[in-house]
């Protein structure tokens, strides 16, 4: 009996130490992914049924509250700017020389025909605030060991009732995320790849978003260049900068 108890305790301790708690994993992800501020250039390739188109942009962001994006190409989108201040979003269109605020139902529209909605971009609440998380095991994703986390909404006003996350067990970055409807239907999937170390933190350079109910190969988001903790002038995050 003593041996059995010792063996049980050993297994419990080993598994207990090797499998961190869900909250801890989410905390580590936050530490890894968030920074005081960041400046990055990115490309967004929207894979349609017949053709694909790529939009490049440059973004400045401070925490999750403030961000400013300027679209660089193609010519049709060039000069379009987007400003997000907490829960408010404005878009400036150079062709009409007008700034419009995206609010209410408009937040549910697709961003430039991609698989992402403005709401998806705006969602800056911490996962730990809106979901109950549980580690359900580990799996191998692209040759790397990953913790599998199942998140269930604990508030009513989130877009997705459940999420499933595969988190790199060593680098603590999400490698894949599935978003589910209330009925359990898989709605969207994002797959992160090209993980690189930037300024001492791991970061996925490519994210593929896919609406799982729709045909097509989804929307690929690529970080072309990223810099953390830069000196960003405060005036960038003002409505005046949209027309500059």
């Amino acid at each position, binding site marked *: 009996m003593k041996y059995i108890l010792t063996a049980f305790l050993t297994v419990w301790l080993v598994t207990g130490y090797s499998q961190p708690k869900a909250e801890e994993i989410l905390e580590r992800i936050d530490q890894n992914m968030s920074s005081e501020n960041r400046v990055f250039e990115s490309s967004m390739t929207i894979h349609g049924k017949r053709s694909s188109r790529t939009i490049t942009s440059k973004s400045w962001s401070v925490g999750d509250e403030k961000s400013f994006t300027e679209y660089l190409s193609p010519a049709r989108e060039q000069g379009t700017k987007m400003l997000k201040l907490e829960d408010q979003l404005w878009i400036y269109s150079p062709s009409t020389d007008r700034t419009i605020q995206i609010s209410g*139902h408009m937040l549910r529209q697709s961003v430039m025909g991609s698989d992402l909605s403005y709401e998806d971009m705006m969602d800056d609440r911490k996962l730990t605030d809106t979901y109950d998380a549980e580690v359900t095991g580990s799996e191998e994703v692209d040759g790397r060991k990953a913790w599998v986390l199942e998140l269930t909404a604990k508030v009513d006003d989130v*877009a*997705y009732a459940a999420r499933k996350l595969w988190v790199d067990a060593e680098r603590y970055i999400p490698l894949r995320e599935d978003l589910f*409807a*209330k009925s359990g*239907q898989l*709605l969207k999937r994002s797959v992160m790849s090209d993980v690189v170390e930037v300024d001492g933190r791991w970061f996925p350079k490519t994210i593929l978003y896919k609406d799982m*109910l729709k045909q097509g190969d989804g929307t690929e988001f690529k970080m072309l260049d990223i810099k953390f903790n830069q000196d960003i002038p405060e005036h960038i995050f003002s409505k005046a900068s949209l027309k500059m």
Partner: protein
Amino acid sequence: MKTALKLAFRNLIGAGLRTWLNVLVLSFSFVVIIWMNGLMAGWDYQAKTDMTNWQIGGGQYWHEQYDPYDPFTLTESHAPVPAGFSDELARGTMEPILVVQGTIYPEGRMQPVAITGIRPGQEILMIPTFALDTVVTDAVPAVIGAVLSRNMQVKEGDRLTMRWRDANGMFDATEILVIKVFSSNVPAVEAGQIYIPLEKLRSMTLLEDEATLVTFSDSEKERQDAGEWVHKSKDELTAPVDEIIKTKTVGQSVFYGILLLLAMLAVFDTQVLSIFRRQKEIGTYIALGYTRREVVGLFTVEGAMHSVLAAVVAALYGFPFLWWQAREGWTMPIEASEFGMAMAQTLYPVYSAGLVIATVLIVVLVTTIVSYLPSRKIAKMNPTEALRGRIQ
């Protein structure tokens, strides 16, 4: 006057082919004007009847935020059905309808739709909602219109994934089974709408006892706005049909104008020629004691009689034609649903006594005026010169 009419008639018949050509052209104007106006009246009647049967019943209450032309208003346009409606709801003379924005994915294509919740047992609208009573265990039974079916290439028995958001904004998705595809003449009820049982939609969206609009059958009852519910009478709801028909009628008037102009040109020419060739006759009339006014009157009656003869000829071939049209209808060569408004593929003209009388009066009046204008020249004629047959 009797003599004038006799003379005019004899002169007209005596002119032979020239008269009959004029009469034929004028009679054609009669028939076309009556037929086209009848077609418009028939369309108006059919469109309003179809809208009543398929879309609006005897009128509706709309939630104050509801705008059928702006799907984005659907998120906010719902509220509990007022308690004051409960009697009519129980009797089935009022039907609550809940409309929610959603998305369907036929063969992986993303298509926005309005998910419309309606009671399967309703009897106000002709939409075959009875099919929604079908027991389906693994999907939601749905009824769709022929326009959506054609556009989405979806047929009866097909299963589709449908996605929507509940009242809190949380996504949900399920499979729907298309039980029935219906066809009406009202594109608004067919395009971009999926009908599912009301109670199912309410539970899916957490909008228990709520509705976006309420349709009632009794259009005669005096009704007022009820809180955040705005009363829309049948006349208000069918006003777009009146607008379209008004626009079309104005367009058609141009066509009638051209048609009448051609006929009147012929009558005018005939009158000018008659006066030119019959100067001796005019001189003789005056020599016999006719006043100039009477001679002008004689020639005007003669011209105007073209229209009377035309009315008789039009009645001869027009009556069978118009009767046949009213019975068989006129089938449009293009797809009527493409117009986006209540319009049957085959329109049945509706003629009224008022329409026929008004058309006859207008044509006779215009012909009389056109006949009078050249006849005024007679008043300026020198009777002696006229008797000699000199050109004046």
